[in-house]
């Protein structure tokens, strides 16, 4: 077997050195009743060719995004990833290293995490960011818990603009604690009144900007209302490319910003692994979950980096830790930071402008469809399209797939209990969409109605 170096002679020699007759003697602490004497009756080992063939067969059963006019977003966005990202990502010194607990032999990881933290802080307009969470949804849940810890309050208000998976992950995280959620209905029109709900019991309000249904809001009045009542404002960002064009949550008064970093560097990957972004203000840093890389100096006085403020974490604080997270999304953070470094200020700004221009162009083309309309006036690269009375968006999407078009997500996939969302289709446009993709989508929708 190609991953196991021992020969039978090696094994015999080693058993002799240990002083036992056979390997079974090494398993003597295993109760007899639980010991398996031979391999389980399951398929035996296979060579690379056989395994490749099996995966090629499974891959063929999928319609991959690159093979279709593709307009799906809803929290996971298809952006072009520069070739250099993946080429560098597979360097064994990055790929096969552990969490950088030994800083002298981990300066590479620690420096890119320090750079990553800085980029996330800059992008979101915040003071400080951590070295990643699992994904946007878990980062959101962690933010709710952190806000309760900071304010010593127990009520978390979840906006209807928030991604439904972020909402349900946060609800799940709080359900067996003394923290409570106040859940607003899904808000495709961007009409909800959050300010009226904030009171002196509120730990935080969590909103998404741009929202799950696309709309963009100036959150400054909401931030002011939260702060007047001693609550925190948590803002989720589902596509960080939007921050190339839209004012960052930090400039609107957010106290915690969470997000999904998948858009940069990571790719679609059927939704996992993702990359949770988490940023906050300096004054809350000791309440933050997750790892932090920090700058220091070595004994020769040279600048270097270490993991720091670890007393917040589970391996030291155990049941009093700010979170149980250990393994996070290190390699995805590397992909993100490499992509963003290649883009830079100039590239990210241009990329965001292209995304927005493509979405505007798509909306213009969709106007051709009778009875259809985009539900909110504002958006970045994604919007909710009302397809018309009596139209079931899920049926349309299904028929589009038959035509080889991946044409958005029906809102009812997330909210099956809301009748009014049945005709709503969520569509995203990015730099990967050509003019002809858009024409193909519009034509296909017309045929499917």
């Amino acid at each position, binding site marked *: 077997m190609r*991953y196991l170096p021992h020969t039978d002679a090696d094994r015999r020699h080693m058993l002799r050195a240990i002083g036992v007759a056979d390997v079974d003697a090494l398993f003597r602490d295993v109760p007899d009743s639980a010991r398996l004497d031979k391999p389980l009756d*399951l398929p035996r080992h296979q060579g690379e060719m056989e395994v490749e063939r099996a995966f090629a067969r499974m891959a063929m059963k999928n319609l991959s995004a690159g093979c279709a006019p593709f307009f799906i977003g809803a929290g996971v966005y298809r952006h072009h990833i520069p070739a250099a990202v993946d080429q560098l990502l597979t360097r064994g010194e990055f790929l096969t290293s552990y969490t950088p607990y030994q800083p002298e032999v981990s300066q590479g990881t620690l420096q890119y995490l320090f750079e990553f933290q800085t980029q996330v802080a800059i992008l979101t307009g915040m003071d400080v960011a951590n070295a990643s969470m699992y994904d946007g949804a*878990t980062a959101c849940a962690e933010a709710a818990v952190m806000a309760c810890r900071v304010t010593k309050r127990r009520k978390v208000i979840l906006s209807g603009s928030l991604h439904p998976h972020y909402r349900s992950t946060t609800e799940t995280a709080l359900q067996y604690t003394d923290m409570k959620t106040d859940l607003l209905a899904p808000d495709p029109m961007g009409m909800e009144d959050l300010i009226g709900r904030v009171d002196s019991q509120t730990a935080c309000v969590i909103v998404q900007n741009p929202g799950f249904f696309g709309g963009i809001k100036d959150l400054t009045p909401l931030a002011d209302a939260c702060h007047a009542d001693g609550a925190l404002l948590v803002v989720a960002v589902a596509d960080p490319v939007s921050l190339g064009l839209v004012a960052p949550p930090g400039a609107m008064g957010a106290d915690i910003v969470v997000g999904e970093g998948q858009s940069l560097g990571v790719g679609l990957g059927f939704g996992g692994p993702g990359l949770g972004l988490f940023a906050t203000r300096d004054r809350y840093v000791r309440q933050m979950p997750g790892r932090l890389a920090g700058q220091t100096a070595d004994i020769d006085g040279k600048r270097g980096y270490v993991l720091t403020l670890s007393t917040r974490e589970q391996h030291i604080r155990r049941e009093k830790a700010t979170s149980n997270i250990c393994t996070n999304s290190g390699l995805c953070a590397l992909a993100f930071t490499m992509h963003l470094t290649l883009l830079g200020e100039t590239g990210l700004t241009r990329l965001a402008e292209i995304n927005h221009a493509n979405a505007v162009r798509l909306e213009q083309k969709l106007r051709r469809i009778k009875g259809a309309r985009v539900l909110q006036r504002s958006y970045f690269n994604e919007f909710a399209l009302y397809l018309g009375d009596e139209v079931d968006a899920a049926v349309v999407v299904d028929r589009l797939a038959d035509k080889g078009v991946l044409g958005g997500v029906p809102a009812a996939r997330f909210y099956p209990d809301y009748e009014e969302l049945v005709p709503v289709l969520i569509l995203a446009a990015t730099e990967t969409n050509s003019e002809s993709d858009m024409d193909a989508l519009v034509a296909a929708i017309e045929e499917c109605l």
Partner: protein
Amino acid sequence: MPESFPISGTISGNRALQIEEPLIFELGSDGRLGVDLPDPAPVDEDRLAGCRRQGRIGLPDLSEPQVVRHYTRLSQKNYGIDTGFYPLGSCTMKHNPRLSEKMARLPGLADLHPFQPQKTVQGALEVIDSLAGWLKDLTGMPAVAMSPAAGAHGEWCGLMAIRAYHEDHGQGHRRRVLVPESAHGTNPASAAMCGFTVDPIPARDNGRVDVDALKAKLGDDVACIMVTNPNTCGLFEDEIIEIARATHAAGAFFYCDGANFNAIVGRVRVADLGVDTMHINLHKTFSTPHGGGGPGAGPTVLSDKLAPYAPLPFVVHGEGGLRLVEHVAEAGGAKPFGRMKGYHGQFGVFVRALAYIMSMGSDGLRQASTDAVLNANYLLARLSDVLTPSFDGPCMHECLFDDRFLKDTGVTTLDFAKAMIDEGYHPMTMYFPLVVHGALLMEPTETESKETLDAFVEVVRGLAFKARSGAAADDFKSAPRYTPRRRLDETLAARTPVLRWKPGANATAQAAE
């Protein structure tokens, strides 16, 4: 010619292949581009609701060659499994097969959106379902929740299912969780997230759970026990079946921390030990890369009693093929405790783990755990006369020493580890588990050859003799010497945290010269 130059050392501060590398923020120059993008189409009127960003973002502009060199140089300051032997106990640093990477990059698996119509992702659902099948077969358990993103997330999954079961059966008052003192810190942290309180169980002199103490703590307010098996001392809990029996008799569940499942795959099915739920670290046991701290995946197997409470989403076999259940209403009477993260689990990690499992097969997986245990016992045997093993008898996949062999030498476990770095090895795990003094926990894994182990043994023996010679304490204290950076000041980092770059603020005295 520079006007002044150092007598020793280099002018640049570089040392051959060890090249100093600034932060990206110190390399940029406005207007450079690392990607070529078309000019955006003009937009008559933007739709940004007046929320257009004002002023610069503040990111540096670099070109592709600069970026490639930057990350290449950073990579050269890292130690990985590809670099050398990495006996980091409890972390399972074994070879990461490149076939797994290749499969994960097939466009038909990588370039899929989680919300495509399900009929267009049947192959992806087959990957999830196939891996789930293997995990159930290898553990003997009837169900597995695939969505947990890592080990700690899997712990939370198992405990949430336990809490949901108790709530559903009028046992919501069961809030106490028994956790051995030797447990990973994630165990008590995960328990706290479910509203449980943690009650520690002491260890016996032989490094195992004190079963009598455990039994004395069982009661009708206990929700579950959390036991790592093989445990964090690298030992199999030989009274595990009695532990499970007593736990069940008290109406509590047995959560097994599966971090060390790699020692027993194919040799023991945890169902036969009485386990009710266990997470599996795919990034340990099934060789997906650790990536400098993730991503991992922590699928969590569940017994029949707990299976109905498994979180959303999950894959079922339906009429038209495989189907993803995303809502309670579609769950066919099951009572999922909720959702743990976005989308459908760590799919990219699943592909890699399945590729590894298919490559190894049932015969290879059994051989792997056997060789892992063989290698650890070989290290134990070859080092026992110079280091001080903490416990008698054979170990499982890792061997534990304490610092008695360093008594009165002036050398600490930390110093010893740093000296190993200079010798070209990644150190073992230090100061964990907490139940022995100055722990040195070594996990060689099955992918290391005998030649590698022999060379390592010679170095460790040499270092032990050197430490005990009584004359080398200063030498150990000043290690490592040959790394890109020497010992770093962690007190400074924690007292005055500098967690990001800011213009003009990040030069140290030395670097500014």
